[in-house]
């Protein structure tokens, strides 16, 4: 006891000195700085415009979901096309001239109902097994499984695929092929028949792509490394792609600013603008077009009457939505169709912002003061869109009420047709026929909207049957006129999904399936 008391005055200062020493050495010269390390990794050494090698760190707001390789979506945006390649890829919506990947050539029959695809020879999966037509058949069979997430099931279901050689596949279809073929092939990357069952939980990733999966930490990160046996010589450029998950937008911005990440997806346009408008370090990259719509419930409530639905069209200030939610990016023409030869330009702007007229129509429909619940999925961008719409609708004499739901609830309600009036956002597809068969607000089977009529069904069928060209354009015209009159779906804006990209990243091309990382490189 006594000695203990005596020794204390001496031992205490010593401990303090030790602590101070340890701290200062940890924080200064003694050790490597994490901040410096991040800068070094991003900068690299060489000074050429596009250099070989290097590590790209990309941040996505949603965790990778390996089970959704056969579907599109933000979760797999940055990595999936690096590992799994489709037969061909559609760039900038140009379905007439797709980029050949695992197919080298294709021929569509004169009746537009058959196609013959020649497959690339000498391609091997990451496991070393050669790629053949059997893999194409296997992949499309998987896409049709009941639990498969593919959004092209309705189209693929109408196809008969046959292997007409080790490296040749023919497709027979009941409806015209040319408006849908390239896109569906692009959406469906080839998976390995031997390991596909191990892909769902991410235990094995075997594709033919330019990168192999080195490490997968579910929900946190996915690390890709260069596939040295990639079929195209000289590609890819990068050594590694690290796909990290950062859900919080403030943290995403912080990661960009501090130099940890070079690419970010899942930010709102406004958030992105906070880093892209300052200095020259980051750019806004405009990716796939996204359709934001308000879909009205025709079965019950205030919008059972057509006049009330039309009133909504006049009430909404689309321009303000574009400016204040999407930072001025995108179009507000109000049509669901993609740009292309069939696009009915003269039908644009059928509903312009006209609150007086909206009020009149609301009165006419006897809907003044009616409460209108609007279902949205709980995310900042849709909350922002909702706030403007709610403000507009209040202005014309309705009482909007927000029903903000988390994804599990929102998605199951919509799929069951119980979404009521809802705000939706759908990735735009490159042809009217694809829109009519895949967009859940428009398609006939498994539709999310409540509206249905014999006339509508016939008109949608017409668009699918007509294929491209003059006939297609006419069918789209007729359907558009009917849709605008019924005013079930008000397209609020068509705006690009944005990615924030460091200026150090080159060869950047995003297709609907995701980043074509085989061409991506770092500069300097």
């Amino acid at each position, binding site marked *: 006891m006594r000695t203990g008391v005596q020794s204390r005055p001496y031992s205490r200062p010593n401990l303090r000195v030790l602590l101070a020493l340890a701290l200062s050495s940890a924080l200064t010269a003694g050790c*490597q700085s994490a901040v410096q390390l991040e800068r070094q990794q991003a900068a690299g050494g060489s000074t050429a415009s596009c250099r070989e090698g290097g590590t790209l760190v990309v941040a996505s707001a949603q965790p990778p979901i390996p089970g959704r390789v056969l579907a599109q979506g933000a979760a797999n945006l940055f990595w999936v096309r690096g590992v799994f390649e489709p037969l061909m890829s559609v760039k900038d919506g140009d379905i007439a001239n797709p980029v050949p990947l695992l197919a080298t050539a294709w021929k569509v029959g004169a009746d537009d109902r058959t196609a013959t695809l020649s497959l690339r020879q000498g391609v091997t999966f990451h496991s070393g097994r050669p790629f053949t037509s059997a893999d194409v058949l296997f992949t499309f069979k998987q896409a049709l499984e009941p639990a498969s997430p593919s959004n092209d099931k309705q189209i693929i279901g109408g196809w008969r695929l046959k292997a007409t050689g080790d490296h040749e596949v023919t497709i027979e279809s009941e409806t015209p092929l040319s408006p849908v073929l390239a896109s569906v092939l692009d959406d469906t990357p080839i998976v390995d028949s031997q390991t596909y069952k191990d892909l769902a939980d991410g235990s094995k990733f075997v594709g033919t792509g330019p990168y192999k999966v080195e490490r997968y930490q579910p929900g946190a990160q996915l690390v890709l490394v260069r596939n040295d046996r990639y079929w195209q010589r000289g590609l890819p450029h990068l050594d590694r792609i690290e796909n990290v998950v950062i859900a*919080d937008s403030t943290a995403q911005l912080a990661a960009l600013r501090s130099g940890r990440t070079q690419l970010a997806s899942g930010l709102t346009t406004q958030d992105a603008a906070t880093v892209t408008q300052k200095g020259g370090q980051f750019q806004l990259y405009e990716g796939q077009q996204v359709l934001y719509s308000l879909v009205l419930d025709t079965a019950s409530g205030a919008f059972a009457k057509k006049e009330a639905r039309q009133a909504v069209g006049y009430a909404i200030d689309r321009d303000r939505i574009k400016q204040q939610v999407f930072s001025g990016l995108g179009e507000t023409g109000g049509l669901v169709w993609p740009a292309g030869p069939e696009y009915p330009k003269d039908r644009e702007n059928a509903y312009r912002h006209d609150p007086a007229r909206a009020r009149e129509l609301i009165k006419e429909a006897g809907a003044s003061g009616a409460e209108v619940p609007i279902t949205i999925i709980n995310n900042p961008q849709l909350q922002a869109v909702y706030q403007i719409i709610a403000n507009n609708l209040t202005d014309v004499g309705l009482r909007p009420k927000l029903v903000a739901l988390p994804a*599990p609830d929102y998605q199951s309600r919509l799929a069951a047709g119980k979404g009521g009036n809802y705000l939706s956002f759908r990735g735009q597809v490159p042809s009217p026929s694809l829109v009519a068969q895949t967009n859940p607000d428009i398609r006939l089977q498994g539709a999310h909207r409540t509206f249905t009529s014999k006339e509508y069904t016939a008109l949608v069928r017409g668009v699918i049957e007509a294929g491209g060209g003059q006939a297609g354009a006419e069918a789209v015209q007729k359907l558009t006129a009917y849709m605008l009159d019924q005013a079930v779906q008000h397209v609020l804006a068509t705006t690009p999904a944005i990615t924030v990209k460091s200026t150090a990243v080159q060869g950047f091309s995003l297709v609907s399936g995701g980043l074509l990382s085989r061409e991506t490189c770092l500069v300097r």
Partner: protein
Amino acid sequence: MIRYLVKRVPSVVLVLLATSVIAFLLPRLTPGDPAAVIAGPEATPETIAAVRAQLGLDQPLVSQYLSWMGGLFTGDLGRSFQYGRPVAELIATRVGSTVELAVLAGLFLAVVGIGLGVLAGSARSRWSRALADATNTSLLAAPPFLVGLLLILAFGVAIRILPISGEMSVLERPDLGLQYLLLPSLALALPMSAGVARLVQTSMLAVRQEDFVDLAVAKGVPTRRISVRHVLRNSLGPAVVAIGIRFGDLLAGAVVIEAIFARNGLGQLAVSAAQSADYAVIQVLIVGTVLIAVIAQLLTEISLAALDPRIRLGQ
């Protein structure tokens, strides 16, 4: 002490059983369908139904519960719906990150909390007491995420000396890992330390009024010795309780801190599981945290007994 622990076993088991039922039912009672998340935003009702069957969600609730419990006893925590991976693996890869954060934050919490409390409770100069008091009060009123944001602004954006995004395992790279850990753990600990400080201060003031302190003063014991040997030792009990209770809070607070510092810990796993209705993950995390809370409480009581001879366990 062992007799005391043995006596507590039945009530602990009962609490855990009740928790498992709640943890199982609560997520399933919230509207929404995990299959709808997996099937995707464009899915048809048929696809969703097929996914439900694949996940076993079409089974009756009782048999789902029993098979989960059966798994728990054989060490199988179940499989995440969202990732298809064993829940145990998901937790194992993240627990390190959160524990590192909580431990360092707990250390800051104890040091800053007790330090501030002792300062405020024993300082004789009015000014230094007022200063300690003011620091304390303003820390109490500052939410952790605000402190975190300010730290990010100060050290990550304005003066870039510490990393503000991401993490590195302290076990693999102690020097780098600690740098990544410093700001988040400070943001987590500082606001909470005020609560501990105030408890220490209050109980020091209370102990000062006790008879044995009067006795010591009357005996002419030096004030410094009174402060340390009599007052401080007898006031640390509440602080230990508070830190013990707050260790659970640390884990909870980690949710927000992990989000803004982009750390992939258990908090992030819990939030993403809750938002995607990944019942398999949530139910395990809930039972796990309640288990930790129960253990923390037991440990707190034991250490309290060790500090305060007036408390005897197990009688």
